[in-house]
C-alpha cells in the first residue's frame, strides 16, 4: 500500500483522493514523535507531512506566525526566539516519555494533539493560540478556517475543532498561531515539604493573588528526587513550585508579596532562572515519570480542588505515582501497565469529581484494549460520529485514532 510523502498541499490533496479511490484509510503523521499516543490506527496507507514544511509568514509586531504543518517545532521555536517571542502555551516535548527520542516533532502533530504545558493556566491552551488552519478534508477538498487575526467570528470555528482532533477531521497543511513576547525573566519559588492537600491549598491561594503566577506544580518527595535540579532533588521532601514570569525588575517585589500572601511556615527555596528552566521542562514533558519504562502514563484533567486528593487516593489504591501541574487541575500518573493499566479505577474515581483521563503511554495491546480517551456519553459519541461523517464521510483519515467508529 502507498506511503505518501507529499511536498506540498496539492500533494496532500492527491494522496487523499488516491486513498479514497482505493477505498483504504490513511494513517497521518508529521514527525511521528507522538505516534504512540492515541489508539492504534488500522490503515492501508501512510501519509507523512514532513515535506510540507516552512515558515510562511512571521510578523513579530502583529504577534502572528504562519507555518506549514510539517515544519519542525524546533525550527518554529528558533524563529520565534530570535525575535524574543514564543508559543504562549509552552508546548510539551513528549519524546523522552514516549521513547520516540529520534523523531522530529512537527507543528501539525502538535496541533493535532493539542497538548499544553505549565503556562496553560495563564496563557491558555494550544487551541487558544491557534487562530487559523488549512486542512484537506476526507473528500480531498482544501478548507480554510480562521486566518491571521486574533478576533474572528466568521462562520463556524473549525480552527478549534481541528485542535486536538488527532487528524480524524482532516489533514492539516498549514497553521497560524498568535504568539507572545517571551517573558523577560522568571522566578520560581519552591515551598518544601507540604502534603499534597496542603500543596493544593497553597497553589490555589497563589492563583488567587494578583501577582500573575504563570505556573503552579507539585512534586511529591519520590518524584522530586528524580529532578535534575539539585536544590529540589536533594531536599528529600516534596516541593510546590510557583513561577512568576515578567519583566525582571518587577519580580523580586512580586515574589516577596506572593510569599507574604501565602503566609506559610514551610521552608522556601528561590530558584535562579537556569534551574527554573530545567525544572519546568521536567514538569512540562513529564520526564520525571519516564522510568521505569514498563509503566503506563496517564494525563488527567480535573478541577484543581480534586487533583491532590486524587493523587493520594490512587497512590494508595493502585500504587500510582505522579505529580500535578495547573494548580491541581492536571495530574500526570504512572501506573502498572498490566491489565487495564488502572483505567477502570482511575475513571471511577474521576466520575464524581468531573474531568477525564487520557492514556498517554502504554504498550500497543493495552492501547488497543483500553479506551485511550475518556469514553463519551452516548449522545456526545453519536454527535462526534456525525461530525466525523460531515468532514470525512468515508472515514479515511486516522480512523479509530480517538474512538472506535470515529
Amino acid at each position, binding site marked *: 500500500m502507498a506511503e505518501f510523502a507529499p511536498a506540498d498541499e496539492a500533494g496532500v490533496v492527491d494522496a487523499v483522493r488516491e486513498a479514497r479511490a482505493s477505498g483504504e484509510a490513511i494513517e497521518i503523521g508529521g514527525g511521528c514523535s507522538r505516534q504512540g499516543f492515541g489508539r492504534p490506527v488500522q490503515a492501508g496507507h501512510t501519509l507523512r507531512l514532513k515535506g510540507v514544511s516552512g515558515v510562511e509568514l512571521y*510578523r*513579530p*509586531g*502583529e*504577534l502572528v506566525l504562519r507555518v506549514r504543518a510539517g515544519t519542525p517545532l524546533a525550527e518554529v521555536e528558533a524563529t520565534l526566539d530570535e525575535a524574543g517571542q514564543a508559543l504562549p502555551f509552552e508546548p510539551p516535548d513528549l519524546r523522552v516519555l514516549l521513547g520516540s527520542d529520534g523523531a522530529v516533532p512537527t507543528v501539525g502533530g502538535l496541533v493535532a494533539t*493539542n497538548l499544553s504545558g505549565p503556562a*496553560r493556566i495563564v496563557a*491558555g*491552551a494550544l*487551541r*487558544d493560540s491557534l487562530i487559523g488552519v488549512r486542512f484537506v478534508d476526507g473528500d480531498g477538498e*482544501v*478548507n*480554510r*478556517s480562521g*486566518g491571521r*487575526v*486574533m*478576533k*474572528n*467570528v*466568521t*462562520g*463556524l*470555528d*473549525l480552527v*478549534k*475543532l481541528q*485542535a*486536538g482532533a488527532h487528524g480524524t477531521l482532516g489533514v492539516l497543511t498549514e497553521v497560524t498561531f498568535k504568539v*507572545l*513576547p*517571551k517573558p*523577560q525573566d522568571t522566578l520560581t519559588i519552591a515551598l518544601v515539604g507540604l502534603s499534597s492537600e496542603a500543596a493544593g491549598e497553597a497553589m*490555589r491561594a497563589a*492563583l*488567587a*493573588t*494578583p501577582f500573575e503566577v504563570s505556573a503552579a506544580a507539585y512534586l511529591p518527595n519520590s518524584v522530586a528526587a528524580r529532578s535534575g535540579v539539585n536544590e529540589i532533588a536533594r531536599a528529600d521532601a516534596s516541593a510546590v513550585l510557583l513561577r512568576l514570569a515578567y519583566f525582571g*525588575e*518587577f519580580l523580586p*517585589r512580586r515574589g516577596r508579596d506572593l510569599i507574604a500572601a501565602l503566609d506559610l511556615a514551610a521552608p522556601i527555596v528561590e530558584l535562579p532562572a537556569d534551574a527554573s528552566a530545567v525544572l519546568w521542562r521536567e514538569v512540562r514533558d513529564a520526564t520525571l515519570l519516564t522510568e521505569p519504562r514498563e509503566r503506563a502514563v496517564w494525563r488527567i*484533567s480535573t*478541577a*484543581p*480542588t480534586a487533583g491532590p486528593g486524587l493523587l493520594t487516593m490512587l497512590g494508595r489504591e493502585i500504587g500510582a505515582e505522579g505529580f500535578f501541574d495547573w494548580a491541581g*487541575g*492536571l495530574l500526570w500518573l504512572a501506573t502498572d501497565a498490566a491489565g487495564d493499566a488502572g483505567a477502570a479505577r482511575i475513571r471511577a474515581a474521576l466520575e464524581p469529581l*468531573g*474531568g*477525564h483521563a487520557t492514556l498517554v503511554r502504554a504498550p500497543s495491546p493495552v492501547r488497543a484494549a483500553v479506551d485511550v480517551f475518556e469514553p*463519551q*456519553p452516548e449522545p*456526545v459519541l453519536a*454527535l462526534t460520529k*456525525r*461530525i466525523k461523517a*460531515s*468532514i470525512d464521510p468515508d472515514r479515511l483519515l486516522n480512523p479509530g485514532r*480517538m474512538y472506535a467508529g470515529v
Partner: protein
Amino acid sequence: MRMPEPKAAVIARRDTIVRELKRLCPAPEAVIDGDDALRPYETDGLSAYRQAPLAVVLPQSTEEVAAVLRYCRDEGIPVLGRGAGTSLSGGAMPTADGVVISMMKMRDVLDLDFENRTATIEAGTTNIAITQACEHEGFFYAPDPSSQLACSIGGNVANNAGGAHCLKYGVTTNNLLGVKLVTLDGEVLEIGGKYLEPAGLDLLGLVCGSEGQLGIITEVTVRILRAPEGARPMLLGFQSNEQAGACVDAIINSGIIPVALEFMDRPAIHAVEAFVHAGYPLDVEAVLIIEVEGSEAEIDTLLERIAEIAARFEPAFSRISRDAQEAAAIWLGRKSAFGAIGRISPDYICIDGTIPTSKLPETLHHIGDLGRTYGLEIANIFHAGDGNLHPLILYNANAEGELAKAERCAADILKLCVDMEGCLSGEHGVGIEKRELMRYQFTAAELALQERVKHAFDREGLLNVGKVFPFDEDRPAEAA
C-alpha cells in the same frame, strides 16, 4: 433582506402551537403571542430589519428548553435562541413561522467557586452580573463587551463576544470552560466543566461563536480571574494614522502587552469631545488609549516606557493618567463614543471587521476613500491591539436611498477587510448582515463543509434559519 419562505402550514397551526408551548412551559406569562407583545422580539441591535415571530417562549429550566426543542423538531417549526437582543448583526431576528426561545427567565448565578476560579450561570444572566457576583472576593470575568450591562452570557457565547480588554485576556472562547447545550433533538449535552481541558473533540470551541446554529445554550461555566492590583491608561495623539499604527506595532514589539489598546480617528474624537468633553486633543488625526496593569510602581514604569517608545513617532499629545479620576476621564471618551456619534447623526451602521494590525494605516486610507466615494461620513473606533475595526457609517434613514447606500459602503469596507487578509467579523457575528458576504471570504466547498457540520447538530435545519450562511434567490426553500 430575503429570508426563507415561512411555512404556511406552520403559521396556520399557530393557536395549537401556542397552546402546546403553554403546556410545556406552564409558568404564568411564559408564552407570548399577541401582536403587540411580540413587537420587542421583532429585531435586535440591527434594527433596520424586523419580523415578528410566531410566538415567544420563556422557559425556566433546561428541561423546558429541551421539551420545546423536541416539540419544534417534531412539528418542523423553526427555532431561534435569544438572549438580550443586543446583537448588531441581526442574528436574533426571527422568522414569521418561528418560535423564539428567550433566556430571560433563566438568569441565576448557579455556582461561584473561588477555589477553582469558576462561575456557573444560567444563559440569560447578564455579562456584568458575573463580575458583580464575584468582585467582593477580588475576582472578575474578563470579556467586557460595551453592551455588558444588557447582553447575556448565552449571547456572548453564541457570538464569541469580545471587549476592550481582550488583548490580554482573550475573547469569550478563551474564558469559557463549559456549557449545557440542548440540541434540536432535545438532548442535553454537558460539555466541559470546572477543568481546563474538555474531553474528546473541542465541541466547546465549535459551539462558541456558532451564533445559535447548533443548539440552545442554557448554562455556562466561565473562568473568573483575580483582579489586578491596579490599572491605568494613557492617551496619545498623533498627526497621522500611519504614526499611530506604527506606534501600536512598536509597543507590541517591545514585549509589553497592554491590557487595552484602543484607537479613535478625527471624526470620532470630535464627536466625543462635543458630547462629553473628555479633554481629548482636537488638533490630531488619531488618538490611542493604552492601558496597563500592575502595582502603582509597575504601572508608572510601563507607561513611562510606552511614552518613550511613542516618542519615536512624534506624538502631538501625550497624557499619562495619575489617578483613578484621570483614568476615568480618558476612558470616558472611548466609552461614550457610540452615544456621541448617535448625537451628531440620526442613524449609523456600526461595522465589525478585523484586519492584520500591520495594515491599519493602509486600511484606514481606503476606508477614507470609500467614505468620499459614497459621500458618507465615517468615524473609526477600534481595538487597535488586535485589529478589530468598528467603522461607524453615518447616514440618515429618512433620506431616500441613504440606508441602501450606507449598506453598500459597509459591504465594501468588509470586503476590504477580507482583501487585507482579515475577516468579516471580529466580535459581532455574521447574522443576516454579512450572510451574503460569506462567499467573499469562503469558497463554496468551505461553506458547504461548515453547513454539513451544522447539520451534524441540527439535522432538520431548523435552528436560527437564514443566518450566517449565504441565502441565494435560487436556493430551494427549506422543506416544509
